[in-house]
């Protein structure tokens, strides 16, 4: 393996922090990844040398802040392979999806249909449910296979002439399965529907080529992609943005304001009401730059080798059952499992006592838990800075948990 993991680890200051007297094995990356020094430095430089409000100021700090903010937009755009004016900063991935549900959603008619899936994160269910209630729409969930994949074979049953939007997780935050985007786009195009991908779990694994996917909307969260909290991204095609009304109202998104009539600024400003999350955006720009500087062929190999090691270790634990694809094909390093008769919280708590941080619970995917008839899973998500020591500590902890509750 050509990855110098130690060199990567040195860039993430938190990894030196001991947990309960033991080294930290951080495998909760799917909930929030850690930040490299480059991101901390970018935010610190803004806060201590060029902090000011953006867009409206003529003084030197305001010029510098505006430049840093727009430069961050350009970095994110390059990371996604799209023009900068199609990139909007939002408060998070959830906020980005809500923006589409309110803005694009306001163009839909009663009886129109939106296709989701049984494995969506609540952030890609609840906004559509709320829209459906407001506007009389119908939600049609795609089924999930026993392997934990969105079953694209089910598309013909749920996509109809009334389908206006198909909104799906690019990568499942529970099973790690990667969506068959081409199949979804083909089905959408056949009926003139739009496609939105929730990229929260895909973005942390390297640059994207959104135009190549043939989709219409993409959302992701900064804090899961090595950036700060309080920042997310929405990308949408320019033609769509131009036809969409604003979501939130406030400063900077207007043309002219009187009490009788208000006109809107062009995108992307139309969708960035009020003072944007400037510092967080600058941090996310630095995170995207950091990701673009990595060799993802090597890092992807590294992540998937660790995934295999983890799956092998679980396979040797007879009471462990994987929730998700068993092989490495069409998946990313999000690995969920259950242990017979042991609750995921108990697993996670015992792992914590050994310095291993994982997530346990329903992962904001209650319909998927129902689908598998479980109350939750224990989940490990691997990032470039994870190493074999992290995986081995996790497997040891799982074995100890099984012994303790046997």
């Amino acid at each position, binding site marked *: 393996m050509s990855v110098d993991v130690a060199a990567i680890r040195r860039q993430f200051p938190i990894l030196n922090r001991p947990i309960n007297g033991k080294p930290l094995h951080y495998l909760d990356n799917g909930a929030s990844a850690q930040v490299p020094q480059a991101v901390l430095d970018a935010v610190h430089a803004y806060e201590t040398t060029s902090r000011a409000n953006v867009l409206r100021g003529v003084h030197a700090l305001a010029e510098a802040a505006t430049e840093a903010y727009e430069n961050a937009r350009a970095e994110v755009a390059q990371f996604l392979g799209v023009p900068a004016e199609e990139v909007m900063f939002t408060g998070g991935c959830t906020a980005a999806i809500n923006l589409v549900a309110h803005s694009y959603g306001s163009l839909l008619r009663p009886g129109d249909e939106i296709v989701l899936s049984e494995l969506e994160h609540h952030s890609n269910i609840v906004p559509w449910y709320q829209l459906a209630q407001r506007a009389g729409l119908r939600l049609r969930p795609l089924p999930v296979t026993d392997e934990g994949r969105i079953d694209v074979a089910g598309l013909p049953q749920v996509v109809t002439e009334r389908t206006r939007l198909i909104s799906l997780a690019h990568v499942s935050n529970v099973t790690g399965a990667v969506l068959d985007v081409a199949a979804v786009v083909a089905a959408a195009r056949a009926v003139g529907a739009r496609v939105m991908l929730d990229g929260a779990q895909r973005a942390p694994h390297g640059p994207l080529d959104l135009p190549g996917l043939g989709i219409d909307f993409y959302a992701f969260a900064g804090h899961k992609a090595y950036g700060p909290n309080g920042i997310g991204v929405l990308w949408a095609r320019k033609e769509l943005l131009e036809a969409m009304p604003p979501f939130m109202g406030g400063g900077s998104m207007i043309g002219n304001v009187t009490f009788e009539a208000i006109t809107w600024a062009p995108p992307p400003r139309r969708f960035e009401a009020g003072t944007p999350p400037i510092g967080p955006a600058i941090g996310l720009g630095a995170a995207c730059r950091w990701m673009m500087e990595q060799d993802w062929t090597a890092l992807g190999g590294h992540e998937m080798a660790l995934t295999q090691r983890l799956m092998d270790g679980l396979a040797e634990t007879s009471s462990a059952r994987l929730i998700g694809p068993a092989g490495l094909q069409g998946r990313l390093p999000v690995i969920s499992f259950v242990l017979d008769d042991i609750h995921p919280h108990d697993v996670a708590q015992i792992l914590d*006592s050994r310095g291993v941080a994982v997530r346990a619970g329903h992962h904001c995917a209650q319909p998927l838990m129902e689908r598998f008839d479980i109350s939750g899973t224990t989940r490990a998500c691997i990032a470039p800075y994870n190493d074999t020591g992290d995986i081995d500590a996790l497997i040891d902890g799982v074995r100890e948990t099984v012994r*303790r509750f046997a």
Partner: protein
Amino acid sequence: MNDALYHDRIVALAKSRTGAGRLPAPTASARRDNPLCGDRVTMDVRLEEGRIAEIAHEVRGCALCQAAAVALRSRAQGRPADDVPVLRQEIEDVLKGTAAGEGNFAAFTPVRAYRSRHDCVLLPFEALQAALNNS
């Protein structure tokens, strides 16, 4: 550190599953969910003249929640329904570290340090109180 959480007494309580299941003819029942973690507790109670004659619990939850259901049952059965708030106060005091806890309740002392797990212990108490309020 937190290995202490799963000391023998808690694990033994949880694994004993004493009183797990449903009652054939409960006076009242209630279910309580913790949406943050997905834990779910159903409590059945049979009352006889204001006294708790019998309790059964169905827990889909962690070992702490299971152990708490078992412990609560052992302390509450046979006592007046009005005592349940007193038991609730006692377990809260144990979690706060201001009481040692009588009987099985003492087993929960180490949970004190894990604030995110307090709700796991309290969920059976909430379900029992809800059942009594329903009766």
